[in-house]
């Protein structure tokens, strides 16, 4: 069984291994043991409410209960831009027009912006290759919406995700080549890494402060602004299905888009329902397709756990859970749980809505 739970100290080795495999794409989880340990520590402080709520970093592990290994991670940053200044480009339009000459020109323009400051970010999603498919990625991602909904007072009304922008096999980014590299005398990967490590003073120091007019960039760079990396396209699609929309912000390095949604309009949140757990020994075939599964959370702040069960387990007021699932969720009969469909237009949801 796969279960979501707070990241813990013993996950360091697994996490490091995952980060190493993931390579350069994932700047918020570089393969750096010290940094990963610091993240684990911060997550522990966060779940135990020993740090300021706005400084919280909520990191969840996906654990294979058989091997006891962490096979995935995902996270929520309570507020961005507090410790380090958070930069994006806002993709805006400059209109110049002269009636006298009958000229009307629109110039797409990038404005340096800190406007995402104080907003909650969903981040750090990583899943082991061996566990890809079968809805595991959905669980890892969507469990966060259940958490955001459950504990919405700890988060902003709106949440966002930064999507990885376009780069080639060598990790070269067309936008970086055309823009960043002219101002930062370093490699894209180095800049991205420094930024991921939380060392952002250099951005304030080196970043161009005036707007960038896009017609002055080559086609190759303009073409990738607001576009996601091929590998990230499925993640973007998933978020769009949840109701996330491009908000006009792009990454300052690779031009990847920022998508955002109001928490209360996220599909997982809207489709969530409360039930009480009923632990039963009736045999249930747990091995059903993702479309027929629902996520079940134990609604705990400190020890948030989520797993999936067949939609057929859901009753009017209760949900039938096997002892193993109950144990994984650390609940007993009668405890409140919260459900949400694992997939869009999942079976359970369809049943509920008509």
């Amino acid at each position, binding site marked *: 069984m796969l279960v979501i739970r707070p990241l813990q100290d013993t996950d360091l080795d697994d996490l490091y291994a995952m980060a190493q495999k993931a390579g350069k794409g994932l700047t918020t989880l570089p393969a750096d043991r010290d940094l990963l340990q610091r993240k684990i520590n911060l997550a522990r402080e966060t779940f135990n409410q020993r740090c300021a709520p706005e400084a919280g970093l909520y990191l969840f592990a996906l654990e294979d209960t058989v091997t006891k290994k962490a096979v995935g991670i995902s996270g929520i940053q309570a507020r961005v831009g507090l410790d380090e200044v958070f930069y994006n480009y806002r993709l805006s339009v*400059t209109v*110049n*027009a*002269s009636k*006298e*000459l009958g*000229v009307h*020109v629109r*110039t797409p323009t990038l404005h340096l912006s800190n406007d995402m400051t104080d907003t909650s970010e969903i981040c750090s999603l990583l899943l082991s290759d061996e566990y890809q498919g079968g809805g595991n990625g959905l669980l890892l991602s969507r469990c966060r919406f259940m958490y955001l909904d459950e504990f919405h007072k700890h988060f902003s009304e709106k949440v966002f995700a930064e999507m990885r922008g376009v780069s080639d096999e060598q990790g070269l980014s067309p936008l970086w080549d055309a*823009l960043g590299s*002219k*101002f*930062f*005398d*370093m490699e894209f990967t180095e800049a991205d890494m*420094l930024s991921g490590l939380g*060392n952002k*003073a*250099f951005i304030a*120091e*080196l*970043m*161009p402060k*005036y*707007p*960038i*007019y896009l*017609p*002055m*960039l080559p086609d190759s760079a303009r073409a990738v602004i607001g576009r996601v990396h091929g590998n990230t396209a499925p993640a973007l699609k998933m978020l769009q299905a949840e109701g996330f929309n491009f908000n006009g912000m792009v990454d300052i390095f690779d031009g990847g888009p920022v998508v955002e949604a109001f928490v209360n309009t996220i599909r997982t949140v809207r489709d969530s329902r409360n039930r009480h757990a009923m632990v039963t020994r009736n045999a249930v075939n747990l091995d059903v397709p993702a479309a027929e599964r629902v996520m079940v959370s134990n609604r705990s702040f400190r020890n948030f756990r989520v797993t999936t069960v067949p939609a057929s387990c859901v009753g009017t007021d209760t949900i039938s859970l096997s002892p193993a699932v109950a144990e994984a969720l650390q609940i007993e009969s009668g405890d409140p749980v919260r459900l949400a469909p694992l997939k869009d237009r999942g079976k359970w949801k369809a049943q509920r809505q008509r």
Partner: protein
Amino acid sequence: MWLVRPALLDDVNQILEIAGAAGSETARLSSTLPRQHEALAEKIEHSLASLAGKATAGGQPPRFLFVLEDTVTGRIHGTAGIDARAGNGQPFYNYRRDALIHASHELGISSRVDVLYPSHALTDHTLLCSFSITPELRNTEAFELLSRARILFIAGHRDWFAQHITVEIQGVQLADGGVPFWDSLGRHFFNMDFETADQHSGVLSRTFIAELMPPNPIYVTLLSEAAQAALGQPHELTVPNLELLQREGFQAGCYLDIFDAGPVLEARTDALHTLVTSRSKTLHGASEEGGDTCLISAGEGAGFRCTLAPVADTLEGTLKVPVSIWELLDKTAGDEVRVAPC
């Protein structure tokens, strides 16, 4: 003989021939000279009003236009203008090139970031403009006469002009007509080719520049390489003119033309070489054509004339000049003239 005198309405057709055929080399070098009959006639009328010391409609500051005439044939071979106040009552646009230093203490990185700031700092300086000459006269003394006659005019009418004086030198343009700086920057915002924009700037109100120019500073590093290379570089055809102006005391500063990034030269009006070295003298006859060739000017306002003549100076402050020159200058013995060495 070559004579520089104020342009008259009768000159319109001949001037149009010089400024004329779009795309000709001459034309490219005189963006502030209109190519339309009506606009040119207006410009000449404005010049005549300015020469008469009359206020003009709309309170526009004085603007002057002179022509270079071959007194033998009566044909006109060039034009040269002065705007008493650059911008003519509206902002005069330039880019000001400045550098920011982007340095990261922690990373030990430091780089120079060149920025072009929109600037109006040269507004209301006196501006030399509308210079055009037929190609065969380049690098001749007529060329020098036409350009420097304006300084003698300023010397004779010093109160009409500002403390600082400016001249825009045409920037790099390729043989195919392409202007690298324009193609990399202005074209995107003005949505027209360089010739069109350049002509508009000479003829129309400059409102369209405020309306169409990118409102924020421009990073040089984002310009095309050709555009970066063209910053502050003169068009090769302007080199003789540039050298002449440098001898006058003009220097390139940090300002660039907003259309082609040509250099903008600046000088203190009172320090101009021709002005400093010119002297007021009393005209006398010379029995023989002796002495060094000098610039010699005379007359106020519409009566202004300037030519080249062999001049013999005397100790008493009088000037011996061939009588043929008297007629050219419309002066006679005992009248005051201004002379400057070539």
